[in-house]
């Protein structure tokens, strides 16, 4: 079951100030903005990796301060740019991390992991027993996606997961991500500074600048946004004519 996320007047000095945000259950939202704009901090507030100095974060209406963070994190997928794969564990053991914490048996883990890895372009038979260091950056990110999604999380947090990949692999992974997203019942928050990526993976875009939210718009209307940061990002991304 997807969860709703609310932030009211949340401040974490000096990174974010007075953030007010409501994300409905099942919504896919992208946070965009320049580096240091407060996107990542806002994302990390959601699973309690960052604690607000003031204000309140609520998941399904319950304040995070009153929530069992360990339990919340086990139903929250988390994908980061550096992949964060455990180097001492095989692909299968990495993907099995949350299922094992939840007490799934090996058969159930395998039955869930095999089709997921196959769909992400990592044939189970070939990849299950390999170690992360023998994989390319793109392959590691695919494992990261599988690891975050295997237990059908109610929230999926992504922090520039494809930031270090070449544009072609990046596009492939965006498509793979969207396909898997379609079948899950998950609320998605996706941090990126790539406008095209934001429009592809999300239906709503929240624009950050200097630790504040400066725009909040449906994804398809993003190019017409009058936020100065958006215009700068569009200008910076355009090809020379």
């Amino acid at each position: 079951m997807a969860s709703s996320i609310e932030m009211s007047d949340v401040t974490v000095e000096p990174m974010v100030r007075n953030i007010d945000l409501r994300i409905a259950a099942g919504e896919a939202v992208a946070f965009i903005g320049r580096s240091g704009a407060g996107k990542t901090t806002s994302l990390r507030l959601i699973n309690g990796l960052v604690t607000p100095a003031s204000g309140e974060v609520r998941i399904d209406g319950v304040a995070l301060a009153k929530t069992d963070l360990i339990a919340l994190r086990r139903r929250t997928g988390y994908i980061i740019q550096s992949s964060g794969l455990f180097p001492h564990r095989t692909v299968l053991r990495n993907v099995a991390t949350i299922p094992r914490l939840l007490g799934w048996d090996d058969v159930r883990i395998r039955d869930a992991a095999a089709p997921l890895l196959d769909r992400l372009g990592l044939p189970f038979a070939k990849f299950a027993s390999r170690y992360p260091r023998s994989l390319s950056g793109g392959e590691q990110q695919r494992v990261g996606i599988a690891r975050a999604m295997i237990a059908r999380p109610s929230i999926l947090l992504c922090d520039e997961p494809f930031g270090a990949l070449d544009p072609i692999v990046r596009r492939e992974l965006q498509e793979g991500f969207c396909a898997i997203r379609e079948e899950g019942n998950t609320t998605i928050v996706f941090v990126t500074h790539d406008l095209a990526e934001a429009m592809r993976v999300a239906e709503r875009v929240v624009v950050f600048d200097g630790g504040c939210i400066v725009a909040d718009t449906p994804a398809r209307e993003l190019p017409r946004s009058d936020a100065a940061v958006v215009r700068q990002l569009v200008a910076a991304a355009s090809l020379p004519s």
Partner: protein
Amino acid sequence: MSTLAADVLRATGEHVIIVAISVIVAIIAGVPLGIWCVRRAAAGRAALRLVDAIQTIPSLALFGLLIPIPFIGGIGMRTAIVALILYSLLPIVRNTVIGIRGVDAGVREAGVAMGFTPRQLLFEVELPLAMPSIVAGIRIATVTGIGVATIAAAIGGGGLGTLIFRGVAMVDTRLMLAGAAPAAVLAIVADVVMTAVERRLER
């Protein structure tokens, strides 16, 4: 068997036992101390400085300092073992700290974000990834311990040093070598074996 061969065998056995007991105790105390040093940054720095200071005391001086202490001191093997434990502490504590601190921040964060408890994070992520470094610390402690243990004979600690000191006193080169050569071989064997273990862990 000649008496000399029997002496060498007995002294080698003693030597191995002294070093083994010391290193095992130092592991049991040092690894948790290292973990604690990582968790409490300020107190950890103080603890590391203390362990570091102990290491800088020359070995014969450390034996001299321990002898007058009641219960743990005195002449004999017990004092030797206490001194060796103190010496073995530094490499083990320090390498535990280095190993855990060296765990990639993204890997640690991923563990926290997936709902590991601090205990699960320690046993499933931090310690396994720190293991090559910890084993390197144990190797250094063992090799150093084998060397320092030869000096322990000066305070009646037994071991191969007994033969060396006796050889020196009697100006008997054969006797000196009968103590020195096995000590050197022990150190080299320990180094080679534990380096192999380290390599295996690093994969």
